[in-house]
């Protein structure tokens, strides 16, 4: 399900020795479980089966984290009657990574109906993951009925507004954004004026060489507006990040992996741990897609991200649960 490379760059605009054509070629493998490691500005790719050969701290980079998304705890229809089971399988996958990730990002739709027991179940399952720190942003399924109050109580400590925040790890600046509040009829995801003002201010004094990671639920690029797969004011957010040499955008919501590179920005969406959705336009609507039971785990997955300090683009690798 990887996107056609419409925006493939052929020039090394930044003269930083980063082989972007090679990076894109590598990203196209990502859906099948390839592993790209950036070392000294050069991309090397390995199949996941060789992961034990390259798991020295040197090759694995200095920062490693995992993104999971769309666990939809509480969903119980035919597309997946056991979302707790597949989330547990995702945790097993994470625990099996040879370079233990330092922390996890959950890009939203933690719960299916914003019920307390659904959030509790996810918390319980994630307790058995090796990385103990989890950073959350809400999906539209997490802020039902109460304008996101419960989400903020559970996961929003230290955040602003509807739950946006930033933090730094090993020199990489992370921005957790919320684009699922105050959705307008006929519209897409939205960040809103207050959050955009905060974002501009938050990154104002960072050095241009600081790698940036933005994570939010709904894609921050126009994947398929007809299905609401986009954010109406993301261009403004990206304008504030234009000065940075490396920006990685991690999203969820569409329940399939997709990637796009545009200048210094790499956009990436993760698979769900609950159920897949159809590729843009390939069905009447973006609802849960049923696949034969034995194939389910192959269309669900996690995303492993590695960064070597001092280098540019992060290595983003998807792997399915089976």
């Amino acid at each position, binding site marked *: 399900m990887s996107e056609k490379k419409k925006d493939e760059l052929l020039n090394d605009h930044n003269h930083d020795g980063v082989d972007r054509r090679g990076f894109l070629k590598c990203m196209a493998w990502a859906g099948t479980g390839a592993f790209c490691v950036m070392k000294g500005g050069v991309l090397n790719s390995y199949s996941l089966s060789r992961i034990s050969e390259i798991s020295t701290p040197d090759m694995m980079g200095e920062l490693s984290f995992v993104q999971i998304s769309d666990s939809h705890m509480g969903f119980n229809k035919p597309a997946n009657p056991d979302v707790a089971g597949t989330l547990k399988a995702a945790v097993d996958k994470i625990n099996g990574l040879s370079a233990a990730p330092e922390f996890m990002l959950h890009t939203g739709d933690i719960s299916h109906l914003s019920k307390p027991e659904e959030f509790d179940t996810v918390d319980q399952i994630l307790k058995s993951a090796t990385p103990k720190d989890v950073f959350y942003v809400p999906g539209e*399924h997490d802020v039902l009925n109460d304008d996101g109050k419960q989400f903020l109580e559970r996961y929003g400590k230290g955040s602003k507004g509807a739950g946006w925040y930033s933090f730094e790890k090993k020199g990489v600046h992370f921005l957790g954004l919320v684009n699922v509040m105050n959705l307008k*009829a*006929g519209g897409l995801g939205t960040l809103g004026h207050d959050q955009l003002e905060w974002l501009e201010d938050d990154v104002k004094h960072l050095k241009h060489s600081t790698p940036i990671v933005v994570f939010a639920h709904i894609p921050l690029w126009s994947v398929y507006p007809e299905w609401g797969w986009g954010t109406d004011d993301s261009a403004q957010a990206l304008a504030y990040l234009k000065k940075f040499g490396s920006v990685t955008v991690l999203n969820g919501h569409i329940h399939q992996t997709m990637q796009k590179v545009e200048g210094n920005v790499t956009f990436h969406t993760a698979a769900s741990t609950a159920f897949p959705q159809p590729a843009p336009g390939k069905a009447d609507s973006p*609802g849960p897609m049923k696949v034969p039971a034995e194939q389910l785990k192959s269309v669900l997955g996690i995303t492993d991200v590695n960064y070597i300090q001092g280098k540019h683009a992060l290595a983003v690798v998807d792997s399915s649960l089976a």
Partner: protein
Amino acid sequence: MRRTVFIAGLAAALVLGTLGFGAGQKSHVANAQEKMSTMEVKIDNFSFGPVTLTVPVGTTVTWVNRDDIPHTVVSTDDSKTFKSKVLDTDEKFSFTFSKAGTYPYFCSIHPKMTGKVIVQ
């Protein structure tokens, strides 16, 4: 003979009246028939069906979610006339329209889903 024909004619009119030409139609045998006071909007495949529903004042509209994903029904007019809680599969939301007007609404979880109730 005439009386039989008259009764048969009245019966036919009653039958035709109750078959219902549509909720907005005023029937000539309104006294004899039951007024259609409930209309249903089916939610399925990320859409409201029918997208535009025209009803007479006093009608109760019931939205039924037949999709395998939850949805909401939230009016977008200035006074925010109605707002359902989250409807999971097979759950319902009803609202009685006591004032004429046009009531656009959407699903607040999937804002691309929009619909309209016209009350006459």
